[in-house]
């Protein structure tokens, strides 16, 4: 007897579908430079984190990533700080984003689980950036989110971004992941 062929399985599918649509809408906002509208998708207590990656000996994985709240990280911040980044772009004087990047956010390999803490959504991302004449960056990595249900969809309560580069090959990280 296949126990997955009942309502819980259908609910999982519907949830996954809702998250997929949410991410598509989020990508649409970022790629359309609707940064302030994007901020509205973030929970007030969001933790937005991207660690540095170290080369470590086999089995000694513990220090492979720098730790949030303790070490250096590319990002380890909350909503106020992300709002500052958005404001900086909106000044029109943020030379690293002036002219503003053209981005495409792609999401795949989505896995969604709901538990007592909310929704855990894991995916792979590809963020392509073209800027000015010939500047291009391709950021590829893993993203682990924690989402909260909210009116009209979800809010992002935690975003952990694993870029996996040891020496960052882009000259800056002015784009949102």
């Amino acid at each position, binding site marked *: 007897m296949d126990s997955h062929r009942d309502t819980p399985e259908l609910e999982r599918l519907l949830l996954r579908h809702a998250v997929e649509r949410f991410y598509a809408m989020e990508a649409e906002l970022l790629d359309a430079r609707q940064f302030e509208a994007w901020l509205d998708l973030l929970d007030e207590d969001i933790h937005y984190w*991207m*660690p*540095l990656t*170290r*080369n*470590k*000996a086999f089995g*000694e994985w513990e*220090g492979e990533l*720098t*730790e949030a*709240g*303790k*070490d*250096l*990280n*590319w*990002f*380890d*911040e909350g909503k106020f*700080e992300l709002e*500052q*980044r958005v*404001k*900086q772009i909106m*000044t029109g*004087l*943020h*030379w*690293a*984003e002036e002219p503003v990047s053209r981005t495409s956010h792609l999401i795949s390999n989505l896995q969604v689980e709901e538990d007592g803490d909310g929704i855990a959504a894991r995916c792979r991302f590809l963020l392509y950036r073209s800027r000015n004449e010939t500047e291009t960056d391709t950021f590829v990595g893993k993203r682990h989110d924690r989402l909260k249900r909210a009116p009209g969809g979800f809010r992002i309560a935690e975003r952990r971004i694993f870029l996996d580069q*040891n*020496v*960052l*090959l*882009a*000259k*800056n*990280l*002015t784009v949102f992941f």
Partner: protein
Amino acid sequence: MAGGDRKYLGGLVRTSEGRISREVFSSRSVYEDELERLFARCWLFVGHASQVPEPGDFVLGRMGEESVIFNRDRNGKLHVFLNTCRHRGMRVCRYDQGNSRKFTCPYHAWVYSDEGGLIAVPKLESGYHNELDTAEWGLIEARVAEYHGYVFACWDEETPGFEDYLGDFRFYFDDYCRTFDGGFGEWEAFGGTFKWRMPCNWKFAAENFGGDYYHNPSHASVDAVILSPAGVEGRHTYDAVTRARELHRLNICFPGIGHTARGEYFKEDYEYMPTYQEMPVVEDYFRECYAKRRERLGEKARFFGHGGTIFPNVSYSNGVQSMGTWNPVGPHETEAWRIFLVPKDAPDEVKNVLRHYVIRYQGPSGLTEQDDMENWGYAHEGARGTIARRFDYHYGMGQGHEKRGWPAEWLGGDIYATEDVSEQNQRAFFDCWARYLDTPPGAQGARKPSAQRAGKNAEAAE
């Protein structure tokens, strides 16, 4: 010696006319001279002692284009080894950090100890017939100098010791090394090293950190969003303080020495200005440090360093307490490495506030340096064009208006301290740079501070 037959001083570098050729930033042959004549001779920063606290600890470093291993051996001694096997050159260590008593080469398995000796060679008997003198074939080791925990290394035996190399600049590097309470307390590096690539020649960054108050317009956007943790004004921790006081904002350089710095000198003593009102633990910490510093340093507490460049490519920032290197990757690219530090005995709240601040200020995710890098990258493009290269860059700001031994004698020996904006620091940097590059391998005299004392700049003096 007449100026005419030198390629660099008086040639590509004509600071007395306020001109520097764009070739200096973009030419392949200049770059190759730099590797041989500059990076192979100078003291370069490799790491901080707190990154390798225990015997056997190691981290990787970089010197010029090359990878080095910076470690603490089983007896507690610090070493810097070129990260290359003596047999066929394979990297003997590919891990960014770890703890090991030996480094085994992955290629043919020569084994080196944490003290650098070659301690095992496969088939030493059957293959080498015991004819390999293992004592001769240890890892290539650099000279090492630890200065208040900051560790520098140098490949050249002729280069003076690190303290002589600092020369009169020592006062400023000491100021950087002092903890917030004015003593030589212990600093501790946060875990992790920022490493990233930038599309520009390394000297754009080195000269910017060494003294470019003129580039403030680069940072209009970050000033507008108020990055300062005090949340009152500007992007620096001290912006709220400096705007309320009378002070001199100084560019600091020394004739004949390439090290340059920036800082502020308050005209009068002042009481601690509340900065972190919403964070009582942090506020108390800085208030106490301020009082101790003033007690310790007296009148000299009126000087606060902002940052600088230890010649040639080691740049530091006070306050965000960062230390890093601009590593050349060809003339057109730079790999920046940077660590950040906090006083070891500071409360966790203080460490956390500073950590948050620094990673949002500097580096590729930093709101401030992002804009610097944009400018360096496209400025570099301007050094590459066939037509563009026929036209020098202008380095003449404040030429002839440098102020000597001013505004306070204790600010240093043979010092130029000029207020607000001036390109005296860039001129000092490039004079020194040119002198190194005019000196072929094996020849002496890359750096002769005593011979330079008399003149306003090196070119005029010779």
